[in-house]
């Protein structure tokens, strides 16, 4: 037994720890909102704590911290090693609840004819891997009467979809814990918030409709997503039974019911189904594309009425994961950067709060301006001389003795965090891999069906990320095809829009069911071109320069000046 003295922001606690559990697990049980996005594998480094006094075990070795020499360690890898242990949980290791979430959506023509007989209140829910958004709907009129959103609390256990599957596969108890994190820790508090805002009661909510990716819907309903994690990636089911709110412990009417939108496959969920419906790509005379830009970019091509879908694992780099000063879209995150070769950074943050991190949209801006200004070359490497000349050079040695070149955006005294804000070459590498995955998915999906980018009549982009990025910059770094820049349509949170339609429009709801069997799933990894396309797309903007004539023309114009 040891006594743990914990400090985290305003929280101060002393607790007894018994048995051999990692400090991270203990902190989470004690109610500290610790970020363990790699499920405690010790790979993400997000759950770091500062041990100010006492001894602890790491990899079987005993470490001793004293006040003059505090030690930093990932809390998922350490165990109490003595009678007492003093530790501080820095705010950067806590899971931030103030993330900006897109709850706006565009809808095609629709009518108010609810499939359920409810006349009180309905809730339309979008369960994303990272965020959850809900609208409360007056079922007499179809009017949205309040909106609310929050991060999906499952993030505290695992970051991306596959690690979520692994976590949920760790036995029934783990699955139940994840289910409780989405229902009791995320959705229920939002339902209360929605009703408070609208001055209504949660007991008036008679109907809930849910849209989300296949894994999220499985966990929400208490179904194991295990089979989605390995070949052939098949979910337990595609159509979900109607469920009672009571059995899911939802804060709704006792007699409330829940309708979950069906999934196409393990990696194309209800969010893709409603995306296909809302974008109307099937009505397009020529070829059209739908992409939900997120950690798993679901991409659907409609070619002469036939649907083909794939998912591209872009990874969470644009959510700030794996980026040294990366951040989710919280207040204080740098969301826009603009600069030229003078390297005078023009920066804006979310809610104009003091800068505390860099979010995905700013990383895209940084790459685009960096490439344009000659700070970053086509391989994603810095012009070190320029950095040094402008006093922006910063370098440090990693734990494995590698020197990492960085560009200093803001020194410590101007940043609202304990370290200077910078972008490293390793960060650029992560961003290039993410953007290459998206571009390679588009190109491979099209070429596998004998189509060229130029033949696409419209490109629909769904998701909050697409809503907030500078599209021109996303094109000039080679994430989206240059030839389609004029054909991009932003849909906002189409998953939430789909949940709203499922609640209010019986025709739309019927169409969702009929879409499920239509797309042919394309497995990108089995198409040899995918690797070539991915490698080509790792360069700025692309190895195949002819695919980005305008971007490079502008670049050359700058050089000639």
């Amino acid at each position, binding site marked *: 037994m040891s006594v743990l003295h914990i400090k985290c922001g305003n929280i101060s606690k002393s607790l007894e720890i018994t048995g051999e559990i990692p400090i991270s697990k203990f902190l989470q049980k004690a109610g500290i909102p610790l970020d363990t996005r790699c*499920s405690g*594998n*010790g*790979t993400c480094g997000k759950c770091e704590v500062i041990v100010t006094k006492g001894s602890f075990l790491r*990899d079987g070795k005993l470490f001793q911290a004293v006040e003059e020499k505090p030690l930093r360690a990932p809390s998922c890898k350490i165990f109490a090693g003595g009678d007492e242990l003093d530790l501080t949980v820095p705010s950067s290791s806590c899971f931030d609840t103030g993330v900006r979430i897109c709850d706006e959506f565009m809808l095609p023509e629709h009518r108010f004819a609810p499939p359920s007989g409810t006349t009180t209140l309905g809730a339309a829910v979008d369960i994303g891997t990272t965020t959850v958004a809900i609208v409360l709907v007056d079922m007499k009129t179809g009017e949205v009467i309040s909106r609310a959103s929050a991060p999906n609390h499952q993030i505290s256990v695992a970051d991306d979809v*596959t*690690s979520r*599957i*692994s976590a949920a*596969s760790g036995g029934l108890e783990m699955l139940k814990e994840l289910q409780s994190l989405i229902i009791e820790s995320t959705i229920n508090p939002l339902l209360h918030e929605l009703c408070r805002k609208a001055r209504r009661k949660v007991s008036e909510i008679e109907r809930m409709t849910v849209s989300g990716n296949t894994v999220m819907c499985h966990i929400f309903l208490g179904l194991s997503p*295990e089979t989605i*994690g*390995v*070949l052939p990636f098949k979910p337990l089911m595609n159509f979900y039974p109607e469920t009672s709110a009571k059995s899911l412990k939802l804060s709704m009417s006792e007699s409330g019911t829940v309708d979950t939108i069906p999934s196409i496959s393990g990696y194309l969920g209800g969010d893709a189904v409603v995306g296909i419906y809302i974008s109307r790509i099937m009505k397009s005379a020529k070829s059209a594309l739908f992409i939900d830009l997120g950690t798993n970019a679901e991409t659907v091509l409609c070619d002469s009425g036939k649907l083909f879908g794939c998912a591209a694992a872009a990874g969470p780099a644009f959510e700030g994961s794996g980026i040294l000063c990366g951040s989710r879209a919280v207040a204080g995150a740098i969301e826009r950067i603009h600069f030229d070769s003078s390297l005078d950074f023009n920066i804006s943050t979310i809610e104009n709060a003091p800068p505390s991190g860099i979010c995905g949209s700013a990383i895209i801006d940084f790459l685009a301006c960096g490439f344009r200004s000659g700070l970053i070359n086509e*391989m*994603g*490497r810095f012009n070190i001389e320029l950095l040094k000349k402008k006093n922006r050079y910063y370098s440090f040695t*990693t734990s*494995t003795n*590698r*020197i*990492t*070149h960085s560009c200093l955006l803001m020194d410590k005294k101007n940043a609202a965090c304990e370290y200077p804000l910078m972008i490293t*070459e*390793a960060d*650029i*590498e992560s961003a*290039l*891999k993410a953007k290459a995955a998206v571009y390679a998915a588009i190109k491979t999906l099209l070429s596998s069906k004998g189509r060229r980018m130029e033949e696409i009549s419209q490109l629909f982009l769904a998701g909050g990320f697409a809503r907030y990025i500078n599209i021109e910059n996303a094109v000039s770094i080679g994430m989206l095809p240059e030839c389609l820049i004029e054909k991009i349509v932003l849909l906002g949170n189409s998953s939430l829009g789909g949940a709203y339609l499922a609640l209010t429009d019986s025709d739309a709801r019927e169409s969702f069911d009929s879409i499920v069997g239509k797309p042919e799933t394309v*497995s990108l*990894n*089995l198409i040899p071109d995918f*690797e*070539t396309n*991915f*490698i080509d797309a*790792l*360069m700025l903007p692309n*190895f195949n320069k002819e695919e980005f004539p305008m971007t490079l023309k502008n670049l050359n114009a700058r050089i000639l000046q």
Partner: protein
Amino acid sequence: MSKNQELYDGIMKGNRNKVIEIVQKSVTEEVNVEEILNDSMIPAMREMGDRFSRNEVYVPEMLIAARAMQAGLSLIEPALTKSGHKSLGKVCIGTVKGDLHDIGKNLVAIMLKGAGYEVDDLGVNCDVEKFRASVDRGSKVILCSALLTTTMPYMKDVVSSIKGSAAKVVIGGAPVTQDYANQIGADGYGSDANDAVKMVDSLLGVKA
């Protein structure tokens, strides 16, 4: 023959067309291909690997260079076989059962070839039998890759099925850690493509 600087630079810069042009010319002129492999191509890829380890190059440059290397290798492989070329040893590599990701695995395979090994590439979704069959064909080291946390546990099956034979198992991939390698009793862990090559070097007693 000494180093062909143009070929060496071509691989380092990932200039695939240049590499193809030079290597094709050598093949046509029936120059000793073993010499261009040993004197120019292998040193270039080894140098890239070392720079990668020092953070002097990153994955994009590495993949582009590896692609140029592979283009050159494909051209000389028939001639090498004919000349009875001796490699540093035979190893096999594959992505584990249930997993289809292979870009990282392919990079390691090219790096190994580029370091002078004969590589039996088993592709993706490899079960224990596939790895065992390659050991029967003479592979001294098995390199196992997984990109998903959900497929990684299969590595344990590979390790335990190989126990008792002379072959060694090296594991790697995004979710894999040294801790995990220790836990399942793998002989080695490669934290990145170059590290995997170094691990094979050390397991086979090869001095680079």
